[in-house]
């Protein structure tokens, strides 16, 4: 099996190198054939690995020693268990779909081979990240996916907005990584190893260790967990490090689906789930996660309400859904978080690719106000988008219903500090989510077409390479809930790969509600229970209200906008995070740099000290030079004075 594990990421890397370095040689067709074959092999092998893991064959071992420093070995290795095997399937499946979709989406782009090179490289990096058995490799993958994200957001590098967005994404992620790296350093300091198994085994032993800080005594484990979580906040775009994700939509749509919705941005969620043995021991850290997550979930959903760019609506929806996952992590429902990660990966990739399909048809127009009425022209795109939206809104029996309902119920059962706030936030979020997702649907596909004549004449359904991935992603968006609800809840799905303290185990409490049911009975019980609770009705209300606003009474949104103008402006400005950061951090550091350069470096050090001393030497020597006149009587006079002075000196002393 070990060879298969190694083959899975390497086949993607290999394909990426071929497409990247020999793109001209293999041509367009060669590039996509090779990379798709690579990812397809990785997907099939991941299925094999998954089946093997289900049979109880987990793996934890090193591949090679990256470095040995101070007798601590830093190794590259794999940990293959239920969690990583699940992630591998999600990553390779979505990646495969996006690869196929790209053939259609990028068909006329000059950077065709380069694009395939990047997305295969991304798949490699993401696989290394989820398969890692240690913090070092995790960080490798972590930064490598960040790099590919940087390259892909800036894929159209002659667009000013794209190259601003990619630099912003990289730098904001670096702020997160700053915390993450310190967290890793703290792990090494506390445990003397970066190996997951060694660290997790030692966690209980140091849970009471403290460190003195200027603000009092801190628990080491809490500090470590929060530092690691700062990394997750960067990568999974949690408030206040979320600002890069909406801008990342400057990249081509396939990567918005793959990287900025389904996989990379969920790396933070995966990481915290992986670190469950550490986070479980610190309720402070869990509460932090919970509060940050719920804040993200509601704040970002609200911004989604006022967006008119079709991709940005989906982007804010992603931010909000990542918040939901983070909330699940915060209440120790790690398996539910990963469950939602999985269903979200399918339906959100579907929504993005659906949006992409619309964008192709609209000749790269992304403003929904210029769309409308597309459902008859693009039936497959419409149908799949409907499925995606229903799943996102959490309407039973679509996948999103099961995972989102499980999150809300978990929060309900939790008695952690902040859980009540989180409960209100996620409940409100349900309404908002349903509203904005159906607003998108109605504005784009219903009503009359508002585009210009030229565009309207050329409207058509997208080619098969585009619609096939949509259909392929629609299937799990419908079915994933049925399939995995039971094993996730009863704990058999993730087995021992996730650790939960009994007193935090809200999922177990949830499962007890379904005691006595199993299989399809449990599904019906869940749906039956779901439609009697508030979230379902909030979602339905959201859908209906969206229908009323955007299909029935088209003047209403404008009226509401006028009525709540201050709120609207706040949302439109996205709470002003961008402006704030731009002023304080970007302009601030440039100003500080200019000031230091001018006054400290060039002024004080170089001007006063270095050149100043040179100038003093110059002045003194200049003065002394005047004495050397070359006139004999001057020298004779000086000698006499000197002699007189010496005699005086000897006589007197």
């Amino acid at each position, binding site marked *: 099996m070990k060879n298969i594990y190694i083959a899975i990421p390497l086949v993607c890397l290999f394909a990426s190198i071929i497409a990247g370095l020999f793109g001209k040689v293999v041509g367009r067709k060669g590039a996509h054939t090779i990379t798709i074959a690579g990812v397809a092999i990785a997907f099939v092998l991941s299925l094999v690995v998954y089946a093997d893991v289900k049979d109880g064959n987990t793996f934890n071992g090193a591949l*090679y*020693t*990256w*470095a*040995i*420093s*101070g*007798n*601590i070995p830093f190794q590259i290795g794999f940990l293959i268990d239920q969690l990583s095997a699940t992630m591998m399937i999600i990553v390779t499946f979505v990646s495969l779909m996006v690869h196929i979709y790209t053939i259609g989406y990028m068909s006329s782009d000059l950077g065709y081979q380069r694009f395939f090179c990047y997305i295969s490289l991304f798949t490699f990096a993401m696989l290394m990240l989820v398969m890692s058995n240690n913090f070092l490799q995790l*960080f*490798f993958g*972590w*930064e*490598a996916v960040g*790099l590919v994200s940087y*390259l892909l957001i*800036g894929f159209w*590098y*002659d667009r*000013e907005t794209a*190259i*601003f967005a990619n*630099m912003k994404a*990289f*730098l904001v992620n*670096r*702020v997160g*990584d*700053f915390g993450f*790296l*310190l967290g*890793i*350093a*703290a792990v*090494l*300091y506390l445990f003397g190893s970066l190996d997951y198994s060694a660290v997790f085994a030692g966690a209980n032993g140091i849970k009471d260790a403290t*460190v003195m800080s200027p603000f009092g005594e801190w628990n080491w484990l809490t500090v470590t967990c929060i530092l690691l979580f700062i990394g997750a906040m960067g990568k999974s775009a949690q408030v206040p490090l979320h600002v890069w994700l909406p801008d990342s939509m400057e990249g081509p749509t396939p990567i918005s689906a793959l990287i900025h919705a389904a996989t990379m941005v969920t790396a933070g969620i995966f990481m915290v789930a992986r670190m469950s043995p550490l986070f479980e021991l610190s309720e402070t850290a869990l509460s932090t996660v919970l509060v940050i997550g719920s804040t993200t979930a509601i704040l970002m959903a609200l911004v989604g309400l006022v967006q008119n760019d079709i991709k940005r609506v989906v982007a804010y929806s992603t931010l909000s859904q990542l918040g939901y996952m983070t909330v699940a992590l915060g209440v120790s429902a790690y398996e539910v978080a990963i469950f939602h990660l999985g269903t979200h990966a399918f339906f959100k990739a579907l929504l993005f690719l659906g949006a992409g399909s619309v964008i192709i048809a609209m000749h790269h127009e992304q403003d929904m106000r210029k769309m409308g009425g597309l459902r008859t022209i693009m039936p497959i795109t419409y149908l799949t988008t409907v499925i995606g939206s229903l799943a996102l809104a959490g309407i039973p029996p679509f996948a999103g219903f099961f995972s989102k309902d499980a999150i809300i119920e978990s929060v309900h059962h939790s008695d952690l500090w902040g859980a009540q706030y989180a409960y209100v936030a996620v409940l409100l979020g349900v309404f908002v989510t349903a509203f904005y997702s159906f607003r998108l649907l109605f504005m784009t596909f219903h009503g009359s077409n508002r585009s210009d004549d030229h565009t309207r004449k050329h409207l058509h359904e997208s080619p098969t390479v585009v619609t096939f991935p949509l259909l392929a992603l629609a299937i799990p968006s419908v079915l994933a809930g049925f399939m995995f609800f039971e094993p996730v809840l009863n704990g058999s799905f993730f087995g021992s790969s996730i650790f939960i303290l009994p007193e935090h185990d809200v999922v177990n409490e949830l499962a007890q509600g379904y005691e006595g049911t199993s299989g399809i009975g449990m599904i019906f019980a869940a749906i039956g229970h779901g439609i009697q609770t508030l979230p379902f009705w909030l979602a339905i209300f959201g859908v209906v209200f969206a229908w009323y606003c955007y299909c029935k009474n088209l003047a209403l949104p404008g009226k509401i906008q006028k009525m709540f103008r201050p709120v609207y402006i706040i949302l439109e400005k996205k709470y002003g995070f961008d402006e704030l950061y731009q002023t304080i951090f970007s302009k601030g*550091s*440039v100003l*500080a*740099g*200019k000031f*230091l*350069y001018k006054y*400290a*470096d*060039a002024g004080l*050090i*170089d001007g006063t*000290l*270095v050149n100043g001393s*040179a100038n003093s030497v110059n002045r003194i020597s200049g003065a002394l030079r005047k004495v050397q006149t070359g006139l004999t009587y001057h020298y004779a006079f000086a000698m006499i004075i000197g002699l007189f002075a010496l005699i005086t000196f000897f006589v007197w002393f």
Partner: protein
Amino acid sequence: MNPLDIENSLLSLLIWLPVIAGISILAVGSDQRATMVRGLSLGFSILVFLLSIPLYTLFDPSTSTMQFVEKASWIQSYNINYHLGVDGISMPLILLTTLLTVIVVISGWQVITERVAQYMAAFLIMEGIMIGVFASLDSVLFYVFWEAMLIPMFVIIGIWGGPNRIYATIKFFLYTLLGSLLMLVALLYLHNVSGGSFDILDFHEVKLDMNTQILIFLAFFAAFAVKVPMFPVHTWLPDAHVEAPTGGSVILAAIMLKMGGYGFIRFSMPIAPDASQELAWLMITLSLFAVVYIALIALVQQDMKKLIAYSSISHMGFVTLGLFIFNSQGVEGAMMQMISHGFISGALFLCVGVLYDRLHSRMIQTYGGVASKMPIFAGFVVLFAMANSGLPGTSGFVGEFLVILGAFQANPWFAIIASLTLIFGAAYTLWMIKRVIYGKVVNEDVHSLTDVNAREIIMLSMLAAMVLIVGVWPNPILEVMHVTIEDLLQHIAISKLP
């Protein structure tokens, strides 16, 4: 000649072969025979590089004693010896020197058209001298090489440099000379107290009281801090880089700065261990200051070479930080940082050189949209920029990572400040990339750019390969220095107070 003989004369060969080759080229070369001169220089530099490989392959990593030792009496009356040898610290630096010299010769191939022989000779002679600095075990020999090194660099900047080269060379010369003189005083003092030896290894064993140690430490500090360069004695470097021709900048950044770090390891720390620990706070403070303060200054530079020069200073802050936290990760990280910085800063200066050769400007605002016209070049630049930002998988990550881990053990606050480089380093590097490489083609000049040619691809590929290999698998380098560094740390831990 049997292999044993090679071992006993390899270092001498590495020092004197390039020096003799340089002098011969100077003798026979003229601009009419430029092609021959280039061929000869390349041949010799490759030969020296190949000859330096046995240093690695025959090196015994299980011991910290000096290897490839050569010892002969030089000036008997003062007990000055021609004493050479390498350990796990100096050996990798010698290999770095021989590799970079090959690249520098290639980089000057078409660019230098006047006084080709002198140019090539200067670099070959400098190569020998720099190897001499790393291989000397006698302090007088070391001092001679140390000072001699300034001469070819002075010439390179002074002749092939930019418009303000005279100011830059004098500043560079005076700055470093001033520091070196204090070092000479310290060496003479040590000669006296060590019972008449100039041997560096003997100096390591001399017992000294605290005040003396502090004075000696400060004297060495004057020499090495200028070379590194540490804040606040760094201001010669940006000027020297801006005026130096590309090859000069490469050697300056890649090798010469390492002499400072090497000096701290070879002299300051083992000779004055108690003072090193006593003054560690100063070293750490200055290093951390460099990481943040210099990074902010780098952010606002308009001249690409100046930006990379400031970036160098900031990165070298990691070296001095790593050294003076006195743990394995710190010191090994510092060494890795020195080696990696050799590749990355060298590569970045070459990249600026590539642009400068075409448009004769180093200013950021001259460019914009270079990627559209030079896609292969853009690929290289982005790779090196990422390496400069410490991306894992590149060599730039290894040193910073280890130093941050080591600093965290010493004091988490050191690690916190040092980690800011993750943000700042990426900020100034990527901002430059954004303005120069990406974006729309801004003017006719950029529109006329042609992509890198085969020669440029070769030199950049060599460095790209090193950056990636060392990033993915640094262990082969760490392995050879492991025992030496452990031994050094043990040595420092033992007080030398009488």
